[in-house]
């Protein structure tokens, strides 16, 4: 072996070592990357044990003292929806296909947004850096983050122009895909299967009631709505429709779903109300139950 190749070998070994060292360190510490932000788990740990562990628990298993209280009054949890179990590595709000890990940005958006109809508030009051750090720390709870990469976000084509035909086609899809089995024929969350639904921890869960017109679990925009049914909300009964709905058809379904939100002003509902067919369809809806859905038996 001549000196030249020996030096090359030594250089290669040194480079391999340099590449290896940070990845060994990463087994303990985690980073998150959201746009230009880089979150660090060591900083996120401090924040987690200040703000999050009361509900999400010491080991991130979703069994903090607010969910599983101990001591004298240990009969009932304070929360009626179990906090997310980070150790399972399963997340509802993703831009990635069902069964894959979400992107850091998905998680970052989720804690900034909070979860409507649950006890998870919006953490928009924390700084962007704080939230990025928290995401990095949350990723230390499940070994999946060490062995798997985040899924590739699904591609969402640009939203086509809103038309009456698009709404009508969406209405057909709502029937054909049997969305009404859980969400109800009028989207009130009262379909024939609604009362039997449980999440993956066997906790009862309600399907979204469109008539209430509140925010969705995973956002507010048409784009968010598109992603909800094309990725599915993992850990809940809501499946992914990515294999059975074509991307261009998915927008039609989005347009129709908006018309079910009778208490939420939207261009879709406004357009639907201008047509005879739409007027008739809206008039034919049952009036029972209150706008908040409280009169609906679950």
């Amino acid at each position, binding site marked *: 072996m001549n000196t030249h190749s020996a030096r090359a070998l030594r250089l290669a070994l040194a480079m391999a070592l340099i590449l290896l060292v940070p990845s060994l360190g990463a087994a303990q510490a985690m980073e998150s990357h959201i746009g230009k932000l880089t979150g660090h788990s060591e900083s996120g740990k401090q924040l987690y044990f200040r703000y999050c562990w009361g509900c999400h628990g010491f080991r991130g298993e979703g069994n903090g003292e607010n969910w599983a209280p101990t001591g004298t009054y240990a009969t009932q949890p304070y929360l009626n929806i179990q906090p997310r179990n980070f150790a399972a590595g399963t997340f509802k709000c993703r831009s990635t296909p069902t*069964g894959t890990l979400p992107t850091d940005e998905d998680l970052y958006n989720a804690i900034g947004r909070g979860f409507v109809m649950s006890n998870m508030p919006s953490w928009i009051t924390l700084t962007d850096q704080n939230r990025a750090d928290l995401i990095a720390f949350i990723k230390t709870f499940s070994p999946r983050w060490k062995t798997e990469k985040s899924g590739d976000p699904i591609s969402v084509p640009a939203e086509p122009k809103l038309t009456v035909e698009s709404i009508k086609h969406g209405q057909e899809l709502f029937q*054909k*895909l049997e969305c009404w*089995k859980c969400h109800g024929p009028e989207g009130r969350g009262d379909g024939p299967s609604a009362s039997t639904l449980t999440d993956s921890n066997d906790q009862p869960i309600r399907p979204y009631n469109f008539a209430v017109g509140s925010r969705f679990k995973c956002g507010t925009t048409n784009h968010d709505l598109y992603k909800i049914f094309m990725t599915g909300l993992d850990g809940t009964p809501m499946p992914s429709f990515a294999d059975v709905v074509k991307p261009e058809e998915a927008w039609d379904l989005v347009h129709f779903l908006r018309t079910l939100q009778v208490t939420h002003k939207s261009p879709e509902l406004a357009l639907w109300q201008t047509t005879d067919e739409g007027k008739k369809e809206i008039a034919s809806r049952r009036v029972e139950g209150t706008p908040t859905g409280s009169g609906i038996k679950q």
Partner: protein
Amino acid sequence: MRIKRVHVASLAVIAATGIASALVYARPAGGTISGKVTYEGTPAKPKPIDMSKEPSCAKQHATPITTETVVTGPNNSLENVVVYVSAGAPDENAPSQAAKFDQKGCQYIPHVLAFQVNQTLEIANDDQTSHNIHPLPKLNREWNKSQPPGTPAINEKYDKPEFIPVKCNIHPWMHGNFAVLKNSHYAVSKEDGSFSLPSLPPGKYTITAWHESYGEQTQDVTISGSETKTINFVFKARPY
């Protein structure tokens, strides 16, 4: 010095090839472990399933079908028990053919499907209604997919051994199981409780029997030559 090292290396190669070929050729002529799975005590009575909410499925069954969490046969036999080699056999690559799981009459067929790690799992919907296929693994990835009538089969794989309950959220009575196993030495007990694990090379094996309601049991068995050994499993039935 140098020559000696070459010798050692080539010897190792020869030895390794010898062992590998011995493993390959020993398999077809191996021994067999067979037996029966039974229960003692009183098992819970299967409950009739009310499918009136799904008429397209209800009309496929002349008499209402019953729950399958415990399926028994004559002479206390216990069906749907996965009997497999849990230790003593090497991990194997997945076979190329797919394991098939069907949804028909709002039932999973078979109720318990055993297949190997990384083997293709092909899920079909033969019903006139939408199903959502929602396996609930703890170790593997959890996904949940909608499958309306007439849509192509779903192909999936699991990369870790695990027993996975399967459900359809739309039809809450639908309930099945996947058994993801490390090697090809497995069987699911038949109606008469019988099972057979053929083509086992001589060796010491741990045989595990798993039942979705009654848990698991193990027995150690040593196989020499091409003998057939009989082992039986008896599960304690629970009346609830």
